[in-house]
């Protein structure tokens, strides 16, 4: 039963990843469509961040340490373009503010 669930989920998640790559392999994308696709990466990343910080009931599960940590990480990412520095800035702020409060 569990093996069936794993295999079905594996087939499903591969199909979702492969579907449009194959379905649109010969499609001539109009400029408006290509412009829309440029917004996919920023919006999905943004939505993932919020979904990680909210409970399934829809409540915000983040306090001041989390919010300040994310602001510092965003600032570090924007100024340095380096994800390791952003991680250090974000986690450092989060731990520091958490220890103070």
């Amino acid at each position: 039963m569990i093996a069936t669930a794993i295999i079905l989920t594996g087939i499903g998640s591969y199909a979702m990843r492969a579907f449009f790559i194959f379905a649109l392999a010969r499609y001539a994308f109009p400029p408006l469509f290509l412009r829309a696709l440029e917004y996919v990466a920023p919006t999905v990343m943004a939505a993932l961040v919020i979904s990680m910080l909210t409970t399934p009931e829809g409540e915000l599960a983040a306090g001041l340490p989390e919010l300040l940590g994310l602001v510092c990480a965003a600032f570090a990412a924007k100024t340095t373009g380096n994800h390791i520095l952003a991680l250090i800035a974000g986690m450092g702020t989060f731990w520091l503010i958490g220890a103070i409060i």
Partner: protein
Amino acid sequence: MGRFFAAYPLHVRDINGAMNSAPTRHALRGSLDALPLFIPALPFAFVFGVVVAEAGIPEWLGWSSSPIIFGGAIQVTLFTLIGEGASVAAAVSAALIVGARHMFYSVTLAPRFQHQPGWFRWVGAYVLIDQVFVLSQIKRIDDPVAFRRYFLSAGFTFWTLWMISTALGVVLGPAIPTEWGVEFAAPVLFVSLMMAASERQDKLAAAAMAMGVTYLLASLPNRAGILIAVIVSVFVMLLATRKKST
């Protein structure tokens, strides 16, 4: 060539030699870019191990989902629901809704994959996860061969590390103490990726809007709010930027 010498440490250049440096460079770059992105996945692999143990699933069977599914959030959702006694149909469909954002990645990369051979479409789709997708969007490599090397190298670096760390996760269980809040590394990394993917003001506006809509829809089951937030934000931004240009 000057840029190549400037960007890499001496020993790399010595090993590869200068003549075949360009192909090797993109493969190496893909692996190096994937490494820091894996940091938050490491505590998540141990969360996965705990979920497998709590669901009462044998370690090897739980781990087999790593190569078969290859998607952390999808795997954790599936086993959480199985552990709660959900039916196969309910657990599988919830896991697939959580993973449905990969369809956006598939659409977005479809134009790039048009210039690729058939085998790469099959293999590339298998490693098309959040981090590999966003790297491919941030890097914007135009040459098809370089793109392919970069994509596969980043994808399979991540794949290898996920296979190893989930194996450790199911064997060791809760080896990383959660009271340090190391899971917070995941939203921190994704904020960093969001900023890297938003090099233009309109993209940053789209990201801010997606954050707001996701928050408003956060109570929807299986994180379906993510899907709606992306569609709404992309649509609104298209309308907004269209007005500006005319």
